[in-house]
């Protein structure tokens, strides 16, 4: 099998995951798209050298984060307000809480995410969006699992406090 096709068929399923991580590492859509492409190119370079992972998701997540840290570090550190042009809530009509969450103002949600510390934002992206386990996230972030758990919980709690009133208002 052509190595390009093998690589693409093994990794393209994780595109949304990588994109979501990139969106939380760099503030603009354009930069996020560039970061995703760089991630895939770097991953492919490793792939053709025989470094094929057991699970592509944590592997791509790690590459994406390392690239973001090395190239976009300065920009990513400072929270900025950016439009959430492509945000799409996942709504389940049978669940009023979910529905209220999905109807949350996307820009407010994005601003709240960017108001978090970078470590919290990344932990949330890896675990709650990308679906990595906290152990995998710890490996990707190069931190102990306890740190990831702490960042996760504080990030979730901050969002709940920042936006909780909006959700409750919509549920009422």
């Amino acid at each position, binding site marked *: 099998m052509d190595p*390009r096709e093998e*690589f*693409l068929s093994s990794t*393209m399923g994780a*595109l*949304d995951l*990588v*994109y*979501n991580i990139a*969106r939380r590492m760099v503030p603009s859509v354009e930069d996020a*798209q*560039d970061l*995703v*492409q*760089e991630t*895939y*190119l*770097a991953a*492919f*370079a490793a792939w*053709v*050298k025989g470094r094929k992972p057991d699970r592509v998701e944590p592997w791509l997540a790690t590459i994406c984060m390392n*690239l973001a840290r090395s190239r976009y570090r300065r920009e990513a550190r400072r929270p900025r307000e950016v439009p*959430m042009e*492509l*945000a*799409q*809530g*996942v709504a389940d009509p049978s669940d009023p*809480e*979910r529905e209220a*969450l*999905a109807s*949350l103002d*996307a820009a407010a*949600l*994005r601003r709240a*995410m960017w108001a978090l510390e970078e470590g919290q934002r990344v932990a*949330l992206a890896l*675990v*709650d*969006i990308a679906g990595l*386990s*906290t152990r995998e996230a710890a490996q990707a972030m190069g931190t102990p699992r*306890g740190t990831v*758990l*702490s960042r*996760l*919980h*504080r*990030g*979730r*709690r*901050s*969002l*709940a*406090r920042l*936006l*909780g009133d909006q*959700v409750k208002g919509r549920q009422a």
Partner: protein
Amino acid sequence: MIGRRTHDPERDAAIYVSGEMRPPERRRFEAHLLGCDDCWREVSLGREGRGMVEASREIAPPGLRDDIRAAISVAPVPRRLPRRLALVAAVVSVLAFSIFGAAQVRSRNQPLPIAAALTAARTETLAARGPSELPAPNLSSQGLQLVMGERVDLAGLTSDAFMYRNTAGETVLLFTSAAPFPVAHAATPLAAGVNGWTAQSDGMTLVCGDRPMNYLVIARDPSLVGLVQHGLITEPTPS
């Protein structure tokens, strides 16, 4: 967890909300939750926050998938070489990958072969499928020296690619193909009486024509594109 170490509502809430407690631990913790206000509050906030994060999930833009495919289609793949050559190739490929990694692919909205050609021009990297089948046009009269010629696959469009360099070290890429090249996004027709188009993309100038063969020329400097175009018309005979 509860019963095994110090009571830690934040940590327990994080593990519980992440769904990482084993069934016996989870049952113990849920029993504990009913009587612990601190843990109940932390779990409630954690669940609420997690729901918000999940609601912020986005779908990658449709064009991004195509951009990645185009970029990968021209990314170099190492070939098996004799040991001495392999060392040289390794150095070259590391350089190529470095350039590739540093490049920010911005060929959005372009047909895939055009996006692939742009990536090759921007990174000055040709991912060869083999040697070029057609001889390289001799453009030395235009002050351009051939650097390499390779057969490449531009996202499904087979092409011979030739890289030339001027005395200042600037490069220009010439792609030729038996099949016509797709028209680039926002292209404008060439002058009256000449089939083809020109376009700007990613800081590059592109010119495409069909005489003396289907060709696509890409360079950062528009004058280099003009030199190649002129050379093809005035000296079509291959070297």
